[in-house]
C-alpha cells in the first residue's frame, strides 16, 4: 500500500534526529512537524524569522501576530526566538539550517530541483524562499507524490521545468519509496512503502533507480 500524505510525512519525520534545525515548505512538508514525537527536540524555523515554532494554537489562544511562512497561525515552543528577514535568511543562506523539506514538480538524478515555475503559461511564477533554501540549507529533502496526477514521473533524468536549485536534493520521500540522490550515482533506493516493489518504483520513475 503506497503511503498517503500523512504517512509520507511520518516516514520522513522518522529520519529527523534530535537537535536539527528544520525548515518545512508549504504542503506535505508542513505535515512533518506533526510526526516528530514531542520528546524528540527538533527546532522548526520559518522564513519570516521564527525559530522554535510549535503546533497550531488552540481555539481562543491564537495570537494574530504570530504566523509561519505559510501564513498559518502558530505557537512558540520554549526556547524560541525571533529575528527579522535579513537575519532569518542569513541563517538559511549561511548554511545553518540542518534540513529543509520541500515539495517538487521534478527532481533530477543529479539532484537538480524544479518546484517554483511550470514555465508554460506561468506568467508570474512565485518563488518565495525556495531558491534561498535550495541553495543554502545543509541538506534538502523532497517529499512528493511519485508521479503527477496523470501518471508522469517526477523523478527524471533532467528537469523539464525551470530549476529552483542545482544539484541540491539529497533525498526524496514519495508515496512509494525513499530514494537517496547521490552525487556520482543518481537515484538509489533506500526504502519502500509497504507492499511496493522495486520494479514498480522503477517503472514509475523517469530515470534509472539503483539498488545501492
Amino acid at each position, binding site marked *: 500500500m503506497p503511503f498517503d500524505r500523512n504517512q509520507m510525512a511520518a516516514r520522513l519525520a522518522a529520519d529527523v534526529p534530535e537537535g536539527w534545525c528544520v525548515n518545512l515548505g508549504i504542503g506535505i512538508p508542513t505535515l512533518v512537524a506533526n510526526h516528530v514525537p514531542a520528546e524528540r527536540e527538533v527546532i522548526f524555523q520559518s522564513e519570516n524569522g521564527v525559530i522554535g515554532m510549535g503546533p497550531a494554537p488552540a481555539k481562543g489562544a491564537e495570537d494574530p501576530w504570530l504566523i509561519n511562512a505559510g501564513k498559518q497561525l502558530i505557537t512558540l515552543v520554549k526556547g524560541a526566538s*525571533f529575528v527579522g*528577514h535579513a537575519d532569518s535568511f542569513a541563517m538559511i543562506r549561511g548554511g545553518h539550517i540542518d534540513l529543509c523539506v520541500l515539495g517538487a514538480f521534478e527532481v533530477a538524478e543529479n539532484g537538480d530541483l524544479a518546484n517554483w515555475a511550470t514555465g508554460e503559461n506561468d506568467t508570474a511564477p512565485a518563488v518565495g524562499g525556495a531558491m534561498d533554501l535550495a541553495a543554502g540549507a545543509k541538506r534538502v529533502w523532497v517529499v512528493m507524490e511519485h508521479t503527477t496526477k496523470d501518471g508522469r514521473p517526477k523523478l527524471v533524468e533532467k528537469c523539464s521545468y525551470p530549476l529552483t536549485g542545482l544539484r541540491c536534493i539529497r533525498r526524496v520521500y514519495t508515496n512509494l519509496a525513499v530514494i537517496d540522490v547521490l552525487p556520482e550515482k543518481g537515484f538509489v533506493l533506500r526504502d519502500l512503502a509497504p507492499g511496493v516493489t522495486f520494479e514498480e518504483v522503477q517503472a514509475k520513475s523517469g530515470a534509472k533507480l539503483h539498488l545501492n
Partner: protein
Amino acid sequence: MINKIVASVAEALDGVKDGSTVLIGGFGAVGQPDALIEGLIEQGAKNLTIALNNAGSGHVGVARLMEVGRVRKIICSFPRSSDPVVFETLYREGKLELEITPQGTLAERIRAAGAGIPAFYTATAAGTLLARGKETREFDGREYVMEKALKADVALVEAWEADRWGNLVYRGSGANFNPIMAMAAELTVAQVQHIRELGELHPHMVGTPGVYVNRVVQVDRGGDWLKPEAR
C-alpha cells in the same frame, strides 16, 4: 525636543512624490502597515515602484493601490496569493512590470542598501532563470550571482510600539522586512499600535533604532483586528 510623532496618516505621507520607489513591510498580515497603504492611495502618488514580499490579495491594500493604477512596477518574491486577481489581470494586460526576486535576496538587497553595500554575491538563484542577465562569479569553486542594493525613496513599516525618537519595538513575527526597510529609504514612516514615553522601551527590545525613522503615526487597529478571524 525630538518628536517624530505626527497626528495623522495624511501628515505621515505628506510629500511622497510620483515615481517614488516604496518599500512596504510585512509578511502576511503581520507587520503590514495597512493604514499607511490606504493612506498612500489617498495621497495619490503615482507611477510608483513598490517592493514587498507579496503582490496583494483581493481588492484591498496593495492590491487596491495597483488596481487604481498607481503602480508601474512591483518587485517581490511571491506574486501569488489566495486572491491574486488584481495583480494577475494587470500583469496579463501588460500594465504592470514584475521583477521576481528570491525572498532572501530581496531581504539582503534591502539590507545592503541600508548598510552602504552597493552589491554582493549570493549562491541563491545561480544557474536558474532568475539569474538571467546577472553577473556571476566563482568563489572557491561555486558559482554566485551578483545582486545589487535596493534603495528606496520611501519605506512604510509597521510596529507594535514606538516612542517620540522613532524607536520601534516589534511583536511576534512582526519584524520580518520592517527593520531592513526602515534602513533603506530616504523617508521612513512607521505605523504603530502604541506610543510609549521616551525611556519606556527596553534598549535591547528596540528592533529599529529611531535614527532610521522619520515619522511615526499611531493607528489603533482596534480589538477586532486582534481576533484571528478578522485577519
